[in-house]
């Protein structure tokens, strides 16, 4: 009995080994793809993530970003603008950086889609949106948008080519 069990275990092992070897010799049928880069909101990585942490940020899944980066984003915000109190959305430093640290683009399926159009806020990102001015205003403009006037707009307000009304919407290349 013991011997027979031993033999069957041996045979089972041999089968497993054979299968394993066989698998190794077969080319993979299903490719696995691993994270290289990720982004959602414009320029967040550029502005808030230190150069030594860009790779870590790019491989941290969004549901884990808040816990990993909110404090670092706050420190960065206060380094850029030591006088930050609240922004034009009424967000204090914790609220603002807490929102930004989870880098996803919020998109509405019912409202007009825009980063900010004067009425709708963070309902998407359209091609013509001046996203940099929105971010600069929230970073430097204070509660009224009137603080640090030299820093709240880059004075580049539109693209160098007109967009198309229909698919694929982006302008032809230069």
């Amino acid at each position, binding site marked *: 009995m013991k011997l027979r069990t031993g033999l069957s275990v041996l045979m089972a092992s041999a089968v497993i080994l054979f299968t394993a070897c066989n698998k190794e010799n077969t080319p993979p049928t299903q490719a696995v793809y691993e994270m290289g880069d990720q982004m959602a909101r414009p320029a967040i990585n550029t502005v808030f993530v230190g150069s030594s942490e860009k790779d870590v940020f790019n491989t941290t*899944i969004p549901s884990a970003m808040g816990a990993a980066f909110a404090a670092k984003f706050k420190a960065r915000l206060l380094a850029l603008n030591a006088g930050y109190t609240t922004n034009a959305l009424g967000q204090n430093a914790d609220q603002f950086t807490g929102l930004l640290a989870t880098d996803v683009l919020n998109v509405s399926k019912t409202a007009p889609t825009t980063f900010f159009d004067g009425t709708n806020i963070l309902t998407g990102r359209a091609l013509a949106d001046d996203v940099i001015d929105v971010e600069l205003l929230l970073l430097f403009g204070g509660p009224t948008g009137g603080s640090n006037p030299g820093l709240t707009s880059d*004075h580049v307000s539109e693209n*160098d080519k007109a967009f198309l009304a229909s698919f694929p919407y982006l302008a032809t290349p230069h």
Partner: protein
Amino acid sequence: MKKRKFLLTAFIVAVTVTGGIIYAADHLDSPAVSNQTTDITDVYVFRGQNTSNLVFVANTQGLLSPSASSMAMFDEKTLIEFNIDNNGDNVEDLVIQAIAKNGKMKVYGPYKPVSTGTKSVISPSAFSVQADITVYGQAAKIGEENGIKVFAGPRDDPFFFDLGQYQKIIGGTASGFNNPGTDTFKGTNVMSIVIEVPKSLLGSTNTINVWAESKKAIN
């Protein structure tokens, strides 16, 4: 017992060494180019001309000159993936995947991914639409199937920003922006993937959270 431990150790060493070689080989393979194909420069999501649709744009390989654009290619080992969370937990419930194959851009989904997180596979049965990759200087080639449209190829970079002046401000050599500013991205192109999808395929909630990922084949 000792032997098993040794075997286990040997196995771990083998895996580590093999992994190391694969990693090194990837980086020896023309690092500048392999980094560029995975570099996402911008993500846009907006209503289509038909407002029942949403348009997803991922731009890659930024700051291409016209001459560089004529030679730029999509990498067949780089998956571009739009991740869509439709219940507010910032975990993808749906993905739209795009990958180049033999001169075509193939799109899979939107569909529920096999697994969430930093690794992805493509479910062949989720194929939805494909288009010939548009060649620089030619009219846009558009694929349309199952109510989903796709375009892939060089386009003007829609982003505009005086990045040069921003860097001077951050570097402490300027105190503010110029008026007018200088668009650092003027006259440059990107490799674009544009996918238009009926909103009805994206779940029943009124808001979604979207992010784009580039993922490189590791096997």
